[in-house]
């Protein structure tokens, strides 16, 4: 989180021009910036289009985006189509990876491929839920805190300090241990992790909001008689969006690592359901005898976290052109 917390305030986003779907290529924009492009054919470019162009130039980020989409499709579409189920055993015990079982089977005959796909689904669901909810809560909280300033800001930030003092994994273990098994496992795990990660978003957004509240357009909004709620939601929040998007991608990586670690030590997703962390945990005594049980779930965790981090890196470069290329 230390990298994302250094985000600077950038104000390249105008609310009225914001176009969320920048994944789709603008019709006539070339994939790379071509210096020989005819000067006559100047096309109006919104900041989002320019960001999309810069993002497409970031090779690792583009590769990562493709890989991540493939992992998501494999987990959800492939998982539904694959003819073995994660909770139905087969007659092949401890089979090596092969055509029938791409990732082999474990000693009770469960097909590792279907288990890994199921685990990836669970881990992705939890990571998405955690990142979406903690980003929303953290953004609103941080925007209010930074915009309000003064005593309100101090109190709100002391609350954040309270959350940030302790290791997520320890507090999450305490919380899931108490509420986990009672209800729908993965939902509660997500809630716990979201409750512990939003302060990171809140702190970064608050830093940016502090700078934004001094801007002329905020003053203009006040002069026009805009209410405080309106200023926060229509002027502060849209102007921190670029920072928030970057934090969001990094949160995906952070929360998938937190969830798998939690499941690994036995305080996260529990059998009969499965998660990538739980699969590694179950395979830790079989590294030498049935290595496929250990390597495949681990590789999937790394793949998701790595691609999310690279996408975050690409987005940071794309959305924050004022930052020197040297910044991470």
């Amino acid at each position, binding site marked *: 989180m*230390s*990298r994302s917390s250094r985000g600077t305030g950038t104000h390249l986003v105008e609310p009225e021009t914001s176009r969320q779907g920048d994944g789709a290529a603008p019709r006539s924009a070339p994939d790379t910036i071509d210096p020989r492009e005819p000067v006559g054919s100047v096309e109006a470019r919104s900041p989002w289009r320019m960001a999309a162009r810069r993002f497409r130039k970031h090779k690792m980020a583009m590769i990562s985006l493709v890989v991540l989409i493939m992992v998501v499709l494999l987990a959800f579409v492939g998982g539904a189509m694959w003819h073995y189920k994660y909770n139905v055993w087969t007659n092949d015990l401890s089979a090596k990876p092969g055509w029938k079982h791409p990732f082999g089977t474990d000693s009770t005959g469960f097909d590792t491929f279907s288990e890994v796909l199921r685990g990836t689904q669970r881990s992705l669901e939890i990571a998405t839920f955690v990142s979406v909810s903690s980003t929303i809560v953290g953004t609103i909280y941080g925007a209010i805190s930074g915009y309000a300033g003064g005593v309100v800001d101090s109190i709100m930030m*002391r609350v954040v*300090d*309270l959350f*940030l*003092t*302790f*290791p*997520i*994994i*320890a*507090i999450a*273990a*305490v*919380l899931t*241990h*108490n*509420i986990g098994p009672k209800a729908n496992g993965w939902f509660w795990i997500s809630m716990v992790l979201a409750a512990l990660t939003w302060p990171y978003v809140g702190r970064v957004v608050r830093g940016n909001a502090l700078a934004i509240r001094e801007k002329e357009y905020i003053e203009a909004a006040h002069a026009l008689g805009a209410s405080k709620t309106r200023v926060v939601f229509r002027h502060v929040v849209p102007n921190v969006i670029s920072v928030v998007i970057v934090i969001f991608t990094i949160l995906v*990586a952070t929360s998938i*690592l937190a969830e*798998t*670690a939690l499941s*690994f*030590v*036995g*305080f996260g997703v529990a059998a009969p359901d499965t998660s990538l*962390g739980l699969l*590694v*945990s179950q395979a*830790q005594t079989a*590294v*030498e005898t049935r290595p496929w049980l*250990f390597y495949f779930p*681990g590789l999937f*965790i*790394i793949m*998701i*976290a*790595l691609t*999310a*981090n*690279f996408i975050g*890196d690409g987005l940071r470069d794309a959305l924050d052109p004022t930052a*020197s290329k*040297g*910044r*991470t």
Partner: protein
Amino acid sequence: MLAFAIRRVLISIPILIVSTFIVFLLVSLSGDPLSNLKTKQPRPPESTIRNAEHRLRLDQPLLERYWHWITGVVHGNFGPSVAGGGTLDIGTEIGHRALVTLRLVFFAMVLAAVIAIIVGVISATKQYTKTDYSFTFTGFLFLAMPTFWFAILLKEGAIWSNKHFGTKFKTLGENSPTISPGLGAHLFDDFNHLILPTITLALISYASWSRFNRASMIEALSSDYIRLARAKGISPTRVLIRHALRTALIPFVTVTALDIGAILGGAIITEYIYQWRGMGDFLLADGLNLNDPYVVLAWLLVSGAAIIVFNLIADILYGVLDPRIRYE
């Protein structure tokens, strides 16, 4: 400076007290510390259960229990324990385990900082070369690597090497149960046991630190005083170390010290895999699995204190390294 340090500690204490209270409520309200005793077959006599309840102060109201605990802590009494029918003295035990964990955390932080500084300096001076790119990729890879997966990999690798090359890596525990007497033998044994866990914990933290150091080195190297130093004819190595690195280390030291929370979290996982009887094991096994609120509280108190001290060290070092900063 002293006044500043004292004020910082005084501000942190209320935060620590509030968080212990919240955790106390959470742990006490949900898990039943006597569930093991109550489900024992044949069921123990009612008087035994009532005695245990009285011993654990479960017959007192919640607030009174907390008050008993916090006044006890001031006198060095960390409350009655569930484990072993109360034979375990939480204070002595956590003191012993804190030393074990602190040893690991200290060496891991030093190792991670050294690697991060070296990698960061090399990456910054050879910016956008193959070396820089491969360091960047390695950094991202470790950032995405789950601690537990890497730890198991390293442990299995060491076992394999022990078997095939006759190396003597210690893969279990924080020390050997039987060693020849003498301080030298003890220290050597402790050191041997430290190697693998330290590498695990260090490599996980080094990733983000080296990215950070690279960024601040690049920033320092592109500043005017570096150009001046070069123009004066100071040797390149001296410019790099005395002028650029010294400036770059200021934010770096703060970031490393503030990461202590994350490292303590990583230490829980590392201890779990190498089966160290440290703080992490105390929290998971004695605290959570036995539903012992006083163990969880003791853990929280000790790690909270460690985090406060590290934050303080960060602030003070900031002042020492950067002469522009003065504390009133």
